[in-house]
């Protein structure tokens, strides 16, 4: 038997006991569910005590009156939203407060139950929510088991690998059929494009190898005291041809004798990705500031560029596999869409974190915080 916890927050005792009574023997069954859902009802007469129950009992569903003696229902809704709690919120409200209804919906309320409500109205709303909760849980389980993610990853990967092949194949076909003329010069542009696509594909494969290392090669990690200045120099040297080509100045500010316990190769992957992005998404003639500082038990790697920047919605999806920010400014920049997701995975493996802030047309800043020694968990 699956149980969903319902918290009803209402200052009218009649409503609370009514909800408890109606749902006491109520069950929701659904063809895909292995077993029916039943309900456990918690009651609170104020928003404050409601929040306490939310904290201690983690309800799945919240039935929320807006007019409460202390803080208002909408503030409780705000609390749930701010903490990103996994609770479906239903407002119990009179039809009169349409304005509130609109605000609550935009704040994330899922449904409304008019007050006063019949047992049937309550039941049908709860039934819908239960089905939705079940579907959400199913999706979450799939994601947890990695199946969903794997599937998406593979389908996107095959798309990313096939697209350049198709492009090159198309160009070769055009060349074979002499579609653009008889002179080799007629084909210069499409040869360049083909080479560009091959380069992109090679980078994708290299990034995939990095990713595979990150995800499966943990046993092979070679942990030592890594000299950050040395790795920074190596990374900048690796990127040198690229920075020269784009006329970008890299300012390096890394203290001598600053070490972290880590795998040197992995630190290099992190640095390479951050620096190459800062060059790629920069303006011609721009700058990259690569600064590492020490902060107690951790170090902070700060990579700042003077480039094209990003909007908030773009930043929100930045660290996912294969996400590339597509807009006018990035359309001629090639990339696998894996770099930052690799960096994030690596950094998190070390118990660190990565943050980004960015202003469109001014630049982006990536801040990686790494503990000097990985905390044992």
């Amino acid at each position, binding site marked *: 038997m699956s149980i969903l916890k319902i918290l009803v927050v209402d200052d009218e005792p009649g409503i609370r006991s009514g909800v408890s009574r109606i749902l006491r023997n109520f069950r929701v069954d659904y063809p895909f569910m292995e077993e029916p859902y039943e309900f456990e009802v918690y009651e609170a007469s104020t928003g404050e005590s409601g929040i306490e129950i939310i904290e201690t009992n983690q309800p799945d569903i919240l039935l929320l009156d807006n007019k409460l003696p202390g803080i208002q229902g909408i503030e409780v809704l705000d609390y749930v939203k701010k903490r990103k709690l996994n609770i479906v919120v239903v407002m119990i409200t009179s039809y009169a407060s349409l304005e509130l209804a609109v605000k609550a919906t935009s704040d994330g309320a899922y449904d409304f139950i008019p007050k006063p409500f019949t047992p049937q109205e309550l039941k049908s709303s709860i039934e819908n929510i239960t089905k939705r909760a079940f579907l959400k849980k199913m999706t979450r389980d799939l994601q947890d088991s990695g199946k969903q993610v794997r599937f998406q990853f593979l389908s996107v990967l095959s798309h990313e690998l096939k697209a350049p092949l198709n*492009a090159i194949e*198309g160009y070769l076909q055009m060349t074979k059929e002499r579609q653009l003329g008889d002179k080799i010069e007629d084909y210069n542009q499409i040869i360049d494009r083909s080479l560009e696509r091959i380069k992109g594909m090679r980078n994708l494969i290299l990034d995939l190898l990095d990713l595979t290392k990150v995800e499966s090669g943990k046993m092979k990690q070679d942990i030592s005291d890594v000299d950050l200045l040395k790795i920074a120099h190596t990374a900048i040297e690796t990127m040198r041809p690229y920075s020269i080509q784009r006329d970008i100045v890299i300012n390096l500010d890394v203290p001598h004798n600053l070490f972290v316990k880590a795998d040197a190769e992995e630190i290099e992957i992190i640095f390479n990705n951050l620096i190459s992005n800062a060059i790629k998404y920069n303006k011609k003639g721009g700058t990259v500031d690569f600064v590492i500082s020490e902060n107690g038990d951790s170090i902070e790697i700060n990579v700042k560029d003077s480039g094209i920047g990003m909007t908030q919605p773009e930043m929100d999806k930045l660290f996912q596999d294969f996400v590339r920010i597509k807009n006018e400014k990035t359309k001629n920049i090639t990339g696998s869409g894996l770099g930052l997701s690799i960096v994030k995975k690596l950094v998190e493996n070390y118990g660190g974190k990565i943050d980004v802030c960015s202003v469109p047309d001014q630049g982006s800043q990536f801040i990686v915080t790494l503990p000097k020694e990985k905390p044992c968990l």
Partner: protein
Amino acid sequence: MATSKTILIVDDDQDYLFQTKLKIEKFGYQVITAESQREAELIIDKTMPDLAIIDLMMENEDSGFILSYKIKKKYPAVPVIIATAVATETGISFDINDENNRKWIKADLFLEKGIRSDLLKDEIDRLLIKK
């Protein structure tokens, strides 16, 4: 051909776009291109193509569906082809002739991206005549 038909091609892969444009111009049609859902929306605001061929996954993985919906809403008679490689890659296939799918997928036809030139031409001609 003074009144040659105009075909809108939308794809975020510039090479695919270039190649398809060339192909379709050879069929004797005029071509307008767009590299994103957004760019295409700006175009259809002002221009009515005679037919549109759009990629499925662009800015978002359902960009093609949304664009198709918008084109159909503005110009119900304009045939829309969604060109995709999704079916072969994911095993997901959308059958456009299925009544349920028709309700939400507004496109007239799904085509595999690697389709042969002559078949592509047949499909375009057929949809334009039907229109």
